[in-house]
């Protein structure tokens, strides 16, 4: 049953990755903030403050549940216990959106707490599609799948990432979460064009856009190596790539992600205001 007080999908407004230290500031003055995203795994305890806070927040804001631990790209089977926890969270919270990553993080029952890459081949496509079907069947709703940040390539890949993702939407009916910072990071690291990536992306399937900051490094050849750290402000070229994307896609729910070295609320509020301006450029 959908809760009548909440929209069934996220509004095309700015959202933010929720951090408990910002609870009071958000409740006091959300500004243009239209929704909140939580990491699913942080709300899988049995009770206490995290769950109580989430219940309060959900009375006021549409919530996006963003999983970081499902390991959809794993060679092995999905973790049934984890799927059951996800189903439980989604059923009591009834979030406006549920998303996960095109990545793996678990192998041989060990979880590595990072989003690890996979090659793009017909074989991995079959496997990821089967996992997405299993997730959607179990959780009972459509999910969004996020494009990763890439630091390296697999010689065995035969499909482009954009084709791989498009094919997944067609086979499973899932939607996509387009992380524009990840596009910029991957394109820089793999010496490809971020604009070409956006042009080839299945924008019709996009249910949410992510923006975040990255760190800058170099590989051993001196080539730039950008690292998706979520620990800084969004850089200007990524804002420009967002404008480029929104001009093609139209307005979308737009998330500011800041997960490490999390600043005081006013710094995030500035990013939210900038996201709101970017949306206003494409909102009739």
């Amino acid at each position, binding site marked *: 049953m959908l809760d009548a007080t909440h929209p069934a999908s996220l509004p095309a407004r700015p959202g933010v990755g929720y951090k408990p230290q910002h609870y009071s500031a958000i409740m006091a003055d959300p500004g243009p903030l239209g929704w909140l995203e939580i990491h699913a*795994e*942080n709300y*899988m*305890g*049995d*009770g*206490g*403050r*995290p*769950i*109580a806070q989430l219940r309060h927040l959900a009375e006021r804001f549409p919530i996006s549940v963003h999983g*970081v*631990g*499902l*390991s959809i790209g*794993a*060679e*092995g089977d999905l*973790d049934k*216990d*984890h799927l059951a*926890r996800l189903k439980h969270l989604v059923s009591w919270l009834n979030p406006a959106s549920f998303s996960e990553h095109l990545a*793996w*993080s*678990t*192998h*041989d*029952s*060990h*979880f*590595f*707490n*990072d989003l*690890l890459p*996979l*090659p793009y*081949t017909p074989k991995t496509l079959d496997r990821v599609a089967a996992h997405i079907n299993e997730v959607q069947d179990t959780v009972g709703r459509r999910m969004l799948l996020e494009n990763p940040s890439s*630091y*390296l*390539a*697999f*010689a*065995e890949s035969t499909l482009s990432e954009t084709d791989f993702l498009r094919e997944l939407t067609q086979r499973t009916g899932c939607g996509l979460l387009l992380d524009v910072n990840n596009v910029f990071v991957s394109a820089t*690291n*793999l*010496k*490809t064009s971020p604009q070409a990536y956006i042009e080839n992306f299945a924008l019709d399937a996009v249910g949410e856009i992510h923006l975040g900051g990255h760190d800058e490094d170099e*590989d*051993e*050849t001196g*080539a730039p*190596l950008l*690292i998706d750290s979520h620990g800084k402000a969004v850089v200007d070229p990524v804002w420009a790539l967002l404008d480029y994307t929104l001009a093609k896609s139209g307005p979308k729910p737009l998330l500011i992600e800041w997960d490490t070295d999390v600043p005081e609320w006013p710094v995030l509020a500035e990013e939210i205001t900038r996201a709101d301006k970017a949306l206003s450029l494409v909102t009739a």
Partner: protein
Amino acid sequence: MSVTQAQFRTAMLDPNAAVPDGIVNPDGAQASKRFNVYRNNVAVSLSDALEAAFPVVRKLVGDEFFRAMAGVYLRKHPPKSPLMMFYGDAMPQFLRRFEPAKSVPYLPDIAAAELALRHAYHAADATPAPPDALGAIAPDALMGTRLRIAPAVQTVTSNFPIHAIYRANTQSDAPKPVMQAEAVLITRSGFDPDIHPINAAAAKAISLLQNGQTLGEAIATADDTLDLGSVLGLLLAQGAITEIY
């Protein structure tokens, strides 16, 4: 040429291992520094999780020792589930066998107390029985009474003064620990867990009550260091009893 996830995992956890063939940079050449991004992300994120989970252990051994110890722990005990809130469950056992930490013999018990605090923080909410609930039981029925204990309640026993050590490392005005065996009771009446000093007999009685034994059974196995009245008083005052039956 295909790279299995087993190969990726093995190379990722071993900084001295070669990067698997088939992982390349955009020019098709070997990509070891790029692969190191994953090595670093995994080690740093798991180490950060352990730092957040065991602040008193870290304070006792210092940052440098803790980082080195975490590096060993995370390779020996990678998380078994994506619930990072409970990562570090094997820390007390690990520290008991970790040779460089042998000179701090109370470290495993402090780690156990910090783990218990974290489990208490995330435990299910519970409605406490009223503080005078035991008074309503007829005296001759008391020994056959059982208590339902709130899910947040935990006990940790030690041969060392773990409550005093915990306090001395979390409060500025705490007295210096005196060498003696101590146990701790962890309760949660609101959202933040509290840690109370108790003795080993009290910890044992609370465990028996948690397992559904009667008050009479809890007393029967205890020695004369058990003051059941004050244990029950503490549990009631902290909202740690949810039902008397």
